[in-house]
C-alpha cells in the first residue's frame, strides 16, 4: 500500500469539500437547523415527552444522524461521480493506487465531512436544549460505522451511475424517505401494526435509534441490536464496494 498516495488522495478529498464549504458544510447545517427549529422548538413545545425525554431533545440525535447519513453519502458519491464525468478519475486509475487506498481515502474524507456537520448540528441544538451525552462509546460507534457505511454506499452509487439522474435516486428516493420513516421525528412505538413491524425492516431505523441511545439513553431498539444491524450493513457495503473497485466496474474497461 502506498501511504503517500493514500494521504494525498485523502487530503485532496478533504480539500475538495473544504473549498466549497458553503455548499458542503453550511448548507446542510442551515437545513437541519431549520428542521430542528420547526419540529423541535416550535412544535416540540406543544408535544408531550416521548420515551421519557422532552420532544425537543428526542429529535436531536435523529436530525444529527440524518445529516451525517446524507453528507457521508453525498461526499463520496458526488466526488467519485464527478471524477468519472470530467475524466480526472484517470489520474487515480493510472497511479499505483489499489482498491484499499481508494476506499480508505474516499470514506475517510466523507466521514470527516459528515462528523463536522453532525457536530455543528449538535452544537446548534445544545444552544436550545442542553443535555449531556448518555454514552460516549455508543455515540462514537454509531457515528463511525454509520458514516463509513453510507460513504461506502455513496461509492457504490457513483460507480453504478452513468448520469446525474441515477445519482439523485439514492438521496431523494431512498435515503430521505427511509430516514423520515426511520424514527427521526417519532418513536415507532407510536405506530400501529403492521407499520411498527414494517418499520423494523428499515436499516436506518437502527442507525437513528443507535445514536439516540448514545445521546439520550432511550431508543425503540436495544443498542446491541442496532449495532448488529449497522455492523452487518457496513460489512455488506464494504465487501460490495471493494469487489466493484477491484473489478474496475465502470472505471476500467
Amino acid at each position: 500500500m502506498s501511504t503517500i498516495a493514500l494521504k494525498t488522495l485523502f487530503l485532496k478529498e478533504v480539500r475538495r469539500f473544504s473549498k466549497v464549504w458553503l455548499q458542503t458544510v453550511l448548507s446542510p447545517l442551515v437545513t437541519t437547523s431549520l428542521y430542528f427549529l420547526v419540529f423541535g422548538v416550535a412544535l416540540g413545545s406543544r408535544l408531550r415527552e416521548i420515551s421519557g425525554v422532552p420532544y425537543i431533545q428526542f429529535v436531536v440525535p435523529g436530525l444529527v444522524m440524518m445529516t451525517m447519513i446524507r453528507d457521508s453519502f453525498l461526499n463520496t458519491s458526488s466526488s467519485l461521480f464527478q471524477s468519472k464525468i470530467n475524466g480526472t478519475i484517470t489520474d487515480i486509475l493510472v497511479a499505483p493506487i489499489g482498491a484499499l487506498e481508494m476506499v480508505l481515502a474516499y470514506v475517510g474524507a466523507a466521514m470527516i465531512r459528515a462528523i463536522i456537520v453532525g457536530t455543528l448540528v449538535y452544537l446548534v441544538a445544545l444552544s436550545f436544549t442542553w443535555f449531556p451525552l448518555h454514552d460516549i462509546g455508543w455515540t462514537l460507534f454509531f457515528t463511525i460505522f454509520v458514516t463509513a457505511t453510507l460513504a461506502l454506499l455513496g461509492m457504490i452509487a457513483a460507480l453504478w451511475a452513468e448520469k446525474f439522474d441515477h445519482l439523485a435516486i439514492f438521496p431523494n428516493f431512498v435515503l430521505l424517505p427511509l430516514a423520515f420513516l426511520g424514527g427521526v421525528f417519532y418513536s415507532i412505538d407510536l405506530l400501529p401494526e403492521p407499520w411498527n413491524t414494517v418499520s423494523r425492516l428499515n436499516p436506518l431505523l437502527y442507525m437513528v435509534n443507535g445514536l439516540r441511545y448514545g445521546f439520550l439513553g432511550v431508543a425503540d431498539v436495544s443498542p446491541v441490536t442496532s449495532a448488529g444491524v449497522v455492523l452487518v450493513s457496513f460489512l455488506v457495503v464494504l465487501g460490495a464496494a471493494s469487489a466493484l473497485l477491484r473489478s474496475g466496474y465502470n472505471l476500467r474497461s
Partner: protein
Amino acid sequence: MKPPVLCCRHVTKRYGKFTALKDLSLEVYEGEIFALLGPNGAGKSTLIHCITGLAKQTQGSIEVLGFDTVNDFRTTRRLVGLVPQEIGYDPFFTPLESLMIQMGLMGVEPNRSRAESLLETFALSDKRDAYTRTLSGGMKRRLLVAKALVHDPRLLFLDEPTSGVDVELRRELWQEVEDLRTAGTTIVLTTHYIEEAEKLADRIGILHKGELLLVESRESLLERHGGRSLEEIYLELIHKADGRHAA
C-alpha cells in the same frame, strides 16, 4: 539495440464480441520515440489503456522494464506516464495544486519546487494559482503533459497529444517531446498526423482493426519504399488490409 522498456506478448482485448486487439506483440526500446499510427478505432488507445491500467487485456501479458502490468501494477504505474487523449481537469484545484496532488498520487512526496519547475517548463508559471477551468485549451493540454511527468516516468505515452491543437502549440509540443527524449524518456506516441510521426519517430507501428500491420524504423521504411512519403505508404497498407478483411 537497447533493452526493451515495453514488451507486449500476444495481447488480445475483447469488448463482448468485438475484438479491439488481436494477438498483438510489440517491443519498445529504451530512449526511442515510437509512433503508433492507425485510423479511428484501430485499437491505439485500447493498447495504451491496457499498458497504463485503464483497461485489462483479455489475453496475453504486458511488461514494463520486466514487471508485469497486472501482477506488479504498483511498480509499472510508477514507471509509466500517460497524457490522455481527452482533456480532463479538476475544477477545484489550480495548476500548482494539481501537480502537487498528482505527485502524491503517483507515490512521490509532493515537492513544490519540482511542481514550479514543471510549470515553468510548460510556460504555465503565470497561471499557477488560477483555477484550471480558466486556462485555454492549449494550456490545459500542456498541464496534462506536466502532470504525466511529475514522477519522472521512464516510459511516457502521448495519446494523440496534438489532436485539435493549433499549429503553434503542435510545434511547441513536438519540441517538448524531443527534449524529453533527449533527457532519456522513452516515448510512445499515437497520432492521426502522419507528418508528426515522420518528424518525431524513430520507429513506426501501424495498427489497423486491432492488428499490427507493420513495425519498422522510420528510416528503413522510407528507404524501402524509395521516394514515397510515409502518408502514401500508410494509406497503401491500410487499403491493402481493408481489401484483405473484405475478402
